[in-house]
């Protein structure tokens, strides 16, 4: 027997190759997780949109006689430190988080994709743009957001700006990589031969073919945006009272950890579930769109 045969026999006998059933089961598990993620994402968006229909109580109404009450029949998740219904605030917080995520990703996409496309298409701009991106990346994520908030001050609008700016480098890199690959294709050359202008080529031909990685990146960045905004609010640098935001609720609730832990536990649980959903869904999306697996 030659070496190849020996190898193959050894492989078969050692049982290292998975039986087809196991392979199928692993794939299905991955899909199920992505599906679960998708369900969570959809529910999150629906909750955020239909806040007024779902909330059991007014999220801003205070009742100081009932501060810090635990979960009860009427107030399912209890009340916070000034008597507001926690469940209603969590539901409203979904809207806050979604708005922050959408707005900041909007900033990140518009600036990041544009910069990335320019860097990928024009050689001369590539060097400068990537240097700028490197400088932005020199600040660890949270510190970049802190720096921006330190300049602009706390508040919802500045959190959106900070988180938006913090997402620009990644979108820029991803777009640039995709553009560099796509621009080698023949249809780009053909378009140029017809006399199409640069703008037409970039926006009409190249970018539409770069969508897959950009979409995946967006799905994976939304949870990062939500967590960063929550972190800033937790520190007191983000969303200010009385706006209901999960991180801010955690920040307010932490003082009462000993006496009323429910104030801090439930908002954090909400953050975790939503982030989990987006991560699972994003992972599944990335695997589905991965050209290598096709």
């Amino acid at each position, binding site marked *: 027997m030659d070496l190849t045969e020996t190898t193959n026999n050894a492989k078969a006998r050692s049982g290292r190759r998975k039986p087809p059933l196991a392979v199928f089961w692993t794939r299905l598990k991955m899909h199920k997780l992505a599906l679960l993620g998708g369900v969570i994402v959809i529910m999150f968006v629906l909750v955020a949109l239909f806040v007024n229909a779902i909330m059991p109580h007014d999220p801003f109404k205070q009742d100081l006689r009932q501060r810090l009450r635990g979960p009860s029949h009427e107030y399912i998740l209890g009340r916070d430190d000034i008597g507001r219904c926690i469940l209603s605030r969590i539901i409203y917080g979904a809207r806050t988080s979604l708005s922050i995520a959408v707005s900041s990703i909007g900033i990140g996409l518009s600036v990041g994709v544009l910069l990335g496309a320019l860097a990928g298409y024009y050689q001369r701009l590539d060097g400068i743009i990537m240097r700028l991106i490197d400088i932005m990346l020199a600040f660890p994520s949270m510190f970049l957001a802190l720096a921006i908030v330190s300049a602009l001050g706390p508040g919802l609008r500045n959190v959106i700006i900070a988180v938006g700016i913090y997402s620009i480098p990644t979108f820029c890199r991803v777009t640039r990589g995709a553009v560099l690959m796509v621009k080698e294709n023949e249809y780009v050359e053909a378009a140029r031969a017809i006399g199409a202008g640069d703008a037409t080529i970039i926006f009409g031909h190249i970018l539409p073919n770069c969508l897959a990685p950009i979409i995946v990146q967006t799905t994976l960045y939304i949870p990062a945006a939500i967590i960063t905004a929550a972190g800033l609010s937790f520190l007191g640098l983000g969303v200010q009272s009385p706006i209901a935001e999960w991180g801010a609720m955690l920040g307010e609730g932490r003082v009462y950890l000993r006496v009323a832990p429910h104030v801090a536990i439930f908002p954090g649980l909400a953050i*975790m579930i939503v982030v989990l959903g987006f991560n699972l869904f994003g992972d599944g999306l990335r695997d589905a769109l991965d050209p290598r697996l096709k």
Partner: protein
Amino acid sequence: MREYIIRRLIQLIPVLIGVTIVSFSILYLAPGDPAAIIAGADATGEDIQRIRVDFGLDKPFVLQYFNYLSGAFTGELRSIRTKQPVLTEILPRFVNTIKLTVVSMVISIVMGIFIGVFSAVRQNSLVDYVGTVIAILGICTPVFWLGLLLILLFSVILGWLPAAGMNGLSHMILPSVTLAVASIAVIARMTKSSMLEVIRQEYVMVARAKGLTEFKVIFKHALRNALLPTVTVVGLRFGYLLGGAVLVESVFAWPGIGRLLVNAILARDFPVVQIGLMLVALTFVLVNLAVDLLYSYLNPRIRYWS
């Protein structure tokens, strides 16, 4: 190899300069007159003018930039809040943060690799299952919430560990574990997939055929090759550890630079914010470079053919 290092260091210089400029410019990004911002809400016109002269804000931007940098070193640049030289405020706390970050990194590397290897070698076992769940949840759990939960469990309910401050080894446990969890998750996942790939290679079969113990096969041959992507991941995690440190320090009242920066921002203490940011960013850039170089050194393809 040496030229590679020198080349990377030279490429670094514009970034380092850029970082100092950006950190310094923070004050100017703020809407309004910097002198008025420093002076505060109820300052008179005279106060503002005095501050403007004191801080040298009436001089050209470039001159101010150099004054700032030299002032930081000579001790002339002082915190607005405490009147101490900025570096006196910043450096001790920076060291505290480094301690926390390093301990967390060590924990996450050790636990992460251990869980990853186990999951790869004993697939579908209990450890694999638990490890996968930890890996998925670990990334999604906000650090500050996890910190609060751990305080609730270990300090409030069980009373085993202290919740705040930095007075001894026991004070280090909760903060560093909290910080490490997300990184354990990522490292474990990476190690597992990397190990799975490596185990299928033929040289592993050769090692087994040679009669080596399974332990040696896994740890001496397979792991060594599987660790390469893990080095990259560890480098990436350093940034998240630093960022997470800001939140963890706040939860556990750990006297580090994260907490200092947050308080300085709330107090509009710009010199501290500017120099603090600068220091953190510079450290981050240098550590990234070190990790890159380490990776280049370890990866035979780059070492021999660069």
